[in-house]
């Protein structure tokens, strides 16, 4: 059988979709609450800095964002095809590069905290 990197691409897409399905709505509620007068303890500068600056908290944030970005990038590639864009090679490079850039930025900002 021909070697293919499809299982890895799809596996990361599925992992990202699952992580996103479980966590994204709750994360949005968390950041929406301050607008309605409820300030989550974690969102104060000192607490969030302590959480994201800790190696474990940072690793969790990094892992979640990497998977989210990969999921969105891969699905966008397929969706653009569905919308009639046929330049898959170019689209693939663009979306995966965007995901990689986002992941690198995440790592950079986490290390800067």
């Amino acid at each position, binding site marked *: 059988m021909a070697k293919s990197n499809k299982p890895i691409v799809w596996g990361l897409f599925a992992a990202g979709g699952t992580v996103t399905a479980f966590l994204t709505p709750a994360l949005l509620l968390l950041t929406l609450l301050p607008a309605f007068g409820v300030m989550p303890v974690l969102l104060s500068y000192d607490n969030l*800095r302590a959480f*994201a600056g800790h190696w474990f908290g940072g690793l969790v*944030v990094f892992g979640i964002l990497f998977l989210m970005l990969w999921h969105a990038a891969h699905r*966008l590639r397929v969706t653009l095809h569905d919308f009639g864009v046929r330049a898959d090679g170019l689209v693939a490079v663009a979306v995966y590069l965007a995901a990689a850039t986002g992941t690198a930025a995440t790592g950079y900002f986490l290390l800067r905290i």
Partner: protein
Amino acid sequence: MSAHGKPYVREVSRYGWFFRSPRYLRYMAREVTCVFIGLHALLLIVALMRLSDGREAWEGFLVNLTSPAGVVLQLLILAFAVYHSTSWFNVTPKAMPVLIGENFLPGAVIIGAHYAGWVVASVAVLFLAGVF
């Protein structure tokens, strides 16, 4: 060429095909959630950037987050994120069927377990973040 003449090829529009059936439209809505998941990732990265810029920057970010535009943006992302979650969990029996002995676990059980897990995970996130 076949001996039976020209094969019939149904014409499918390359661009507007998904308006042909509500089923296709639901599929496209599901796929388009990725744009909003990407937007949310971007929002989180900006949050990390502002956090790493220091206290004033973070507090400025919180002000933006609670502005009308910030709330509308987050509610929009939330709507698509919830659609992503439900559409994702609803296909889990097809994506990973569970075989017990000679029978497949009923799809409703697998979907139900995911919804229960979703509730637990959401409550856990809000609890760990000190909302209650």
